[in-house]
């Protein structure tokens, strides 16, 4: 029986190439993650603390942007060709966006990793969020801009495929998988406008020296205008797999096609006007705007809960088709041996836990308790780090045979790998959440535990650190097993029927969904209006307060230990030992620097 690679060989090559880039990024990013986990917890230090931020930036960019989005464009290309049952309109356009995204990725990665080599005058240790006034090398921003433009072209490619399909099928409902792709891309177009403006009009000219200053709050707000919807951009391919593939793997059918459409429409409407909830502690944004963002964020619980209901109902249907009975006993009838199913199910379970910790982040009052603490990476390692990443890895075990024509090398290794990821993440994210509640900060290579009294409700800081290191190690091993399995699969010989790639019709078919759900122009219009309502006044207020270009010069993010040592050595003669008595080293250094400045 022919599978995807036989029907659409050109598209299969693009999907293969996208997955290859995604998995390379996954391997490098995971390795950097392990180094950070061991460094921060003081288990093993193979890098200078100065380089920690270079690796942290690379870890965030390679995993949160490159791995997830390259996998997304691969899955979406597969879904469009399979859903519309036709090749993409022009494969040259498809390769063009792939090439642009890859070039942008390489440029950005080089700008970041050059920070590890002092001889190269280039660095971008600005972390994944690239907040001004931290300034990166222009290549970092230009690479990111190329990457984003590449995704826009990919969306255009898929909309052109839709136009062709619609021309031949004027009265048909949009097939569910392409519907999910198109609505996700509408959300992406609306939300990436913010980061595009920030990068093209402010950060690139600023890093090139064309303008001297930026308004940090403005660029930061524009980043978060994009920064929260990007979470849903990562999540939507996982949702696509949960809605359309997971029920099939469970042996059943999707419970409700109309409900799935409602969920994706809600994400189009609600994803973007919420970004200010990442800025609850930012001065310069009125509390009222933050309250509105919080309210909008809470509305996003609705599609998440609808998804939980629909996916669980679909999986239960599958279990009962396989002979499962009782209120909970049906869980035992599910195909837990299948790594694709087990991985997605575990990812969904972890997503529920991540959703609960996300509600803490979203609440204005309790967010202050955990803001900028380890709680936050604990949260997003559960959501993007597991709900998304584990679903993508698990989905690979079902998708890879379709795009290569080869069977998975080892399903037992696959099962072991997804379970290992779940266990590793339980250790790491649990410890991060607990550490966050104690007030342990995030984004630091040198967390200090001596001068603070971390009152742990349970356990100790030492245990938390060990748990993070152990969890990080398990996660890295899981990635190694995954990459080995993928590489070995790729090296296999082709077979006639590598996997059953059929997707059964939903229990509640699309004919039951109101026609208005397929009116993409309407939902785009409403989404734009909601964004205008949510952002016009805050942005106007920020620009009125500090101007469009603000007054902040760039701050170098590249510091060398040699320069630091020279500064300290020149300051030391000015330090009075008596005055330094009882002070912490940092205070002594600050005082010395002040003395030096005065003496000059």
């Amino acid at each position: 029986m022919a599978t995807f690679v036989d029907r659409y060989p050109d598209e299969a090559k693009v999907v293969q190439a996208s997955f290859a880039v995604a998995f390379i990024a996954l391997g490098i990013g995971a390795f950097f993650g392990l180094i950070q986990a061991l460094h921060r917890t003081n288990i093993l230090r193979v890098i200078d603390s100065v380089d920690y931020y270079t690796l942290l930036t690379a870890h965030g960019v390679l995993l949160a942007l490159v791995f997830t989005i390259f996998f997304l464009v691969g899955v979406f290309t597969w879904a469009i060709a399979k859903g519309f049952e036709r090749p993409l309109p022009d494969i040259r356009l498809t390769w063009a966006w792939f090439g642009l995204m890859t070039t942008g990725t390489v440029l950005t990665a080089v700008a970041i990793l050059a920070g590890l080599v002092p001889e190269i005058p280039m660095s971008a240790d600005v972390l994944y969020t690239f907040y001004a006034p931290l300034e990166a090398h222009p290549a970092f921003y230009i690479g990111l801009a190329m990457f984003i433009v590449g995704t826009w072209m990919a969306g255009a490619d898929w909309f052109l495929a839709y136009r062709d399909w619609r021309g031949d099928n004027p009265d048909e409902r949009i097939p569910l998988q392409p519907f999910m792709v198109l609505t996700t891309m509408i959300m992406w177009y609306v939300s990436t406008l913010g980061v595009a403006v920030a990068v093209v009009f402010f950060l690139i000219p600023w890093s090139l020296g064309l303008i001297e200053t930026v308004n940090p709050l403005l660029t930061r707000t524009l980043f978060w205008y994009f920064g929260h919807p990007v979470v849903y951009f990562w999540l939507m391919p996982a949702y696509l797999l949960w809605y359309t593939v997971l029920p099939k793997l469970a042996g059943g059918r999707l419970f409700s096609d109309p409900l799935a459409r409602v969920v994706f429409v809600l994400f189009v409407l609600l994803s973007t006007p919420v970004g200010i909830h990442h800025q609850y502690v930012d001065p310069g944004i009125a509390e009222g705007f933050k309250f509105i963002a919080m309210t909008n964020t809470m509305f996003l619980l609705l599609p998440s809960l609808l998804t939980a209901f629909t996916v669980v109902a679909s999986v239960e249907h599958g279990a009962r088709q396989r002979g499962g009975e009782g209120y909970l006993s049906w869980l035992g009838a599910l195909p837990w041996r299948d790594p694709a199913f087990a991985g997605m199910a575990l990812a969904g379970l972890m997503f529920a836990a991540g959703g609960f910790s996300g509600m803490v982040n979203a609440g204005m009052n309790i967010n202050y308790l955990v803001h900028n603490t380890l709680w936050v990476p604990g949260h997003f390692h559960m959501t993007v780090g597991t709900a998304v990443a584990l679903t993508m890895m698990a989905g690979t075990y079902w998708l890879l045979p379709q795009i290569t024509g080869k069977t998975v090398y080892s399903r037992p290794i696959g099962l072991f790998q997804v379970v290992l990821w779940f266990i590793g993440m339980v250790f790491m994210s649990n410890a991060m959440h607990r550490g966050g509640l104690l007030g342990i900060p995030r984004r630091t290579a040198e967390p200090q535990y001596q001068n603070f009294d971390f009152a742990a409700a349970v356990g100790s800081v030492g245990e938390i650190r060990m748990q993070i290191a152990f969890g990080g190690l398990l996660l890295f091993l899981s990635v190694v097993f995954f990459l080995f399995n993928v590489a070995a699969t790729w090296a296999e010989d082709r077979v006639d029927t590598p996997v059953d790639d059929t997707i059964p019709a939903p229990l509640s078919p699309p004919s039951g969904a109101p026609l208005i759900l397929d009116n993409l122009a309407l939902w785009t219009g409403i989404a734009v209006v909601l964004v205008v309502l949510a952002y016009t006044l805050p942005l106007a207020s920020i620009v009125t307060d500090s101007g469009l270009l603000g007054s902040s010069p760039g701050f170098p993010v590249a510091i060398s230990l040699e320069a630091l040592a020279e500064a300290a050595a020149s300051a030391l003669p000015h330090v009075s030992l008596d005055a330094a008595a009882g002070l912490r080293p940092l205070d002594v250094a600050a005082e010395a620097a002040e003395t030096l400045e005065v003496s000059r």
Partner: protein
Amino acid sequence: MRQLSPGLFLVLVAFTIPLAVEFRTVAGFFGFDLPFISMILFEVVLLAILTGVYVLGRLTPDEDTATTS
């Protein structure tokens, strides 16, 4: 005895980890400050129970509830 497949057994082993890790937290809610070793002991107990269920299911399979998963 219900027969567990190796796949389900492995997944259930994974589920015992968060139970063991959060065991002390739950005990803390009720004022019991348990030492670190209690988490390991609790995990061992959970694994022993799970292994027992798995082995018994293999030794005395219940034909009506045997799963093919």
